[in-house]
Structure formats: structure tokens, C-alpha cells
């Protein structure tokens, strides 16, 4: 039933200094289907693999728009992500209403980090069972942040969370140097290629199971904003076709095994 005596609630430390309930929550993130995020000098991209519970059901929403300048992708309990995304939406609107400015990503991610941490310290609460990738642009350019149920948040250049995300991370690490100067389309394709790495043997990317979110800066001095846009269904066909099996226009470079 229980692994030990120290995992009954999230306010108890084990003798080794671990909080098991928080670790179990992290486990829920690993059960969720994979999402990938990556950043260039001008854009931030989120790519997600959607799951359907059965043939008769719809595909789970994986990418949520928060504001004009940011959005998120989730892995884990979708209902927890909804609570967090609603809170983030309110924080964004509140910043615009009170200060007349778009909320900086770091501040928003810190605030959900604080919320998640509270749940690991107060008796009777439970940690959020969801991991998030938050992508957007603010006055300091494009950003990608990772959020974990433990309350840990960190800024990333590229990141993948969820089931079998290690395969996607390996792809991202191998192609890391290409991201910074990548264009918008190139960045999305990299994201999809990373996503493809994590697919199960019998699965492939289709317009049904793919979600793409793009946000960036454009124009003179990179001051104008290319607002967060969510692509679903037929809108992702262009990119899915590019990474589809047998559509490899160039020989897989960088796929040679490191010595």
C-alpha cells in the first residue's frame, strides 16, 4: 500500500530529507504525454503531443493561451493546469489593468512557483500534479520557463517534459547550437522533430495529435510583438508534413553517434 511511513502527506520529511508526496506529484508529470519547448533569439515555440483516451473521445488540450504575449503547455493533470492557467490569466490581466503593461514572464512564473511551494508546506494541501512549459515574450525578449510540482521553476533554452521526454531532450541537446539563430519555421520543425523522437514505436505525428504554439518579436529593433498563436488540426499540417516519414529533404545531420 504505502512505500513507507513518511509519504502520507506533503508536510512530512523522510529521515533522508525527502518529501515523498512531492515526488509522487512529479511522477504524475511523467505520466502525461510529452511537450517540448524551445527558444531562439526572436521566437519561443511550444509543441505538444495530444492523447485521446479512446477512439471515441476527443484529444486532450495541451497548449493554453494565457495572454497576448504568452502561453503554456502542460504535462500531467489537466485540471490542475486549468487552475494554474486561470490564475496566470488573472495575473496577466491584473498587470495590464493596474500598470498598463504586459506582465514579465519571470514574475508570472515565480508567482505560480510560490503557489506550488505553498502546497508543499501547509497541512491538508496537495502539490499540483502538473508540469508546465511557459513560453512568451516580454521587454527582455523571448523566454521559456519550466515549472515543476515541487515549486521549482527555471529558465530554459530548450526543454521537454512528460512521458519518454528523455528522447526529445537528447535531440534538443544534440541540436542546441542551431536554435539561437533559427527562424520561426525552423524552430517549429526542430520542436516537432524532438517530439517525434519521443513517439512510441507504432505512433506517428498527425494533424490530430499535434499542437503548436508560437510567440515572438518582429520588426524594427525587435520591439513589435508577434502575439501567441495556437495552431491545431489542419493548421499544423504544413509542419507535420515537413517532418513526416520519408520527407527528409536533407540527410540527418548531427545524428551521428558521438565518439
Amino acid at each position, binding site marked *: 500500500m504505502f512505500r513507507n511511513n513518511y509519504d502520507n502527506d506533503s508536510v512530512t520529511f523522510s529521515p533522508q530529507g525527502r518529501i515523498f508526496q512531492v515526488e509522487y506529484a512529479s511522477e504524475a508529470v511523467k505520466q502525461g504525454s510529452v511537450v517540448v519547448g524551445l527558444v531562439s533569439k526572436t521566437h519561443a515555440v511550444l509543441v505538444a503531443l495530444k492523447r485521446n483516451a479512446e477512439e471515441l473521445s476527443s484529444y486532450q488540450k495541451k497548449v493554453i493561451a494565457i495572454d*497576448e504575449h504568452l502561453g503554456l503547455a502542460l504535462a500531467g493533470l489537466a485540471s490542475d493546469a486549468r487552475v494554474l492557467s486561470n490564475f496566470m*490569466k*488573472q495575473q496577466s*490581466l*491584473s498587470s*495590464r*489593468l493596474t500598470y498598463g503593461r*504586459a506582465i514579465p514572464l519571470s514574475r508570472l512564473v515565480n508567482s505560480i512557483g510560490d503557489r506550488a511551494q505553498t502546497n508543499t508546506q501547509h497541512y491538508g494541501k496537495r502539490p499540483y500534479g502538473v508540469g508546465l512549459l511557459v513560453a512568451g515574450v516580454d521587454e527582455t525578449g523571448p523566454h521559456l520557463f519550466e515549472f515543476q510540482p515541487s515549486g521549482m521553476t527555471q529558465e530554459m533554452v530548450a526543454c521537454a517534459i512528460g512521458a519518454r521526454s528523455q528522447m526529445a531532450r537528447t535531440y534538443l541537446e544534440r541540436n542546441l547550437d542551431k536554435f539561437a539563430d533559427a527562424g520561426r519555421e525552423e524552430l517549429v520543425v526542430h520542436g516537432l522533430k524532438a517530439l517525434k523522437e519521443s513517439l512510441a514505436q507504432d505512433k506517428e505525428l498527425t494533424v490530430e495529435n499535434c499542437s503548436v504554439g508560437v510567440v515572438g518579436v518582429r520588426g524594427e529593433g525587435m520591439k513589435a510583438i508577434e*502575439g501567441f498563436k495556437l495552431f491545431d488540426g489542419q493548421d499544423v499540417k504544413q509542419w507535420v508534413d515537413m517532418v513526416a516519414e520519408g520527407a527528409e529533404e536533407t540527410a540527418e545531420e548531427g545524428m551521428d553517434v558521438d565518439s
Partner: protein
Amino acid sequence: MAMFSQNPLMNGPNYSFSQTPSTAAAGNKEHSFYPYTDNGGSTLAISGNDFTIIAGDTRSTSGYNINTRYSPKVFKIGGTTSSQDDATLVLSVVGFAADGAALKERLDAIVKMYRYQHGKPMSVKACAQRLSTILYGKRFFPYYVTAILGGLDEEGKGAVYSYDPVGSYEREQCRAAGAAASLIMPFLDNQVNYKNQYIPGSGEGHALQEREKIPLPRNEVEDLVKDAFDSAVERHIEVGDGLQMLIITKSGIEEKYLPLKKD
């Protein structure tokens, strides 16, 4: 005597409330904080068959002073970006400018939250009802404004909703509000709804046929708005400087600015 007091002279600019000081028996003057001011100005909205025009002058006053010659009273509401290029609703607010700005900001945030929660833009009808509840929410410390909301209804027809300061509202063809409302409204009754106009030679007395109401084309409505404001500028000291027009059509909201007399 009254010249050196802070209160307007008799027949001075009309404040919303009488601000004459109450004098105690001993002749001591009572001082108190008064939360409202009237910033003058006037607004006007007319709906057509497939468009709505909402206009307002850009003058802001305090008593006999002009605070600024350009302070918009007409605002885009909702939309998905901070530029509000894709907004479909327009709110005009006249009366106490601080309350007006606060009301507009609040409605804007609520309309944006609506889109997030419902996954669709807010209809004018829904927004009109919501604005009423916002105003009534401050029933005992009202937003001191006369609001007019405009847009296109579900059939694509022009829609204008007008409000009193505590949330009473109705949908109308046209409405003038603010300092020069009493000057403009009768003109609109006559020129938009053809009130007291009869078909020539159609009979005597009660047999007279009323002139048929036809929805006005956009260019004619624009001319009516200009004429209405030019007239108001002549006869009301709190109206002038500039005329801002927002024209709502199915292809978006167009903005026009025309100078008015600055005297």
C-alpha cells in the same frame, strides 16, 4: 464675495450637484471632501443598418478651465491584443472622467476574461447586460457617468445601448449624452427618427401621413454627427476642440478625428 469663493457663480458652468456651501448658524463654513467633479464634454451614438457610429468631443474641463483639448471619451473594448485592432465593441463615457476611465478599464478586463472563459468574443447584448450589473454594483457610490455602448448585434445590425449612472439601460436607434445632450437629442429625434415630419399633401390634421422611417446610409449619419457637434460647440461652452468618431462595421472599427472650434 462669491467671486473669491471656490464655488461657481450663479449661472456658471453647470456642476452635477449644487456645490453651494451650507453656512452654519455661527457663520462658520463647512468644509468636506466631495468625491465627484464634472468634466463636461458630450457624446453621441447612432446605429444604422450594418454599422454603428459612436462619437465624442475631446475637450475636458474643470469649471471655466480647459484641462486638455485632447482627452478621448470613446474607447474600444475587448480585442485580443493591446492595440485592440480586432475589437468589436465601443464604450463612450461622459461625466466624471476619473470614474469613466475606471469603468472603461474594468469593462475591458471583464470582456477579455469572458473571451478566455467562453472561447468566443462577447456579444454586444451580453456586454450591455454586464455593464448594467457593473454600474449597479456601485449603486450607493455610483460611477458618475453616462455610458453608451455600441457594436453590431448577432444579426450584424447596428446596436446602441444607453445607460444612466446606476445601470438602467435600453437599446436605442440613437442617443446623445453629456453636457450638450439636451441640445443634440431633439435634433436627432427629428433627423434620425423623423419625429413631427409628415408627407407633404397627404391630408389635413389627423389625416397627415408620418414620414416613412428609413435606415440612414453611413455618409449621411456621419454628416448628422458633425452637424450635431458643430451646433453643440456654438451653444455650449464645455464642448469643443476635437471630434472623435469610431465607426463599427463588420470589417472592424474605423477611427476618424475632426477638429472643432477651440473657443
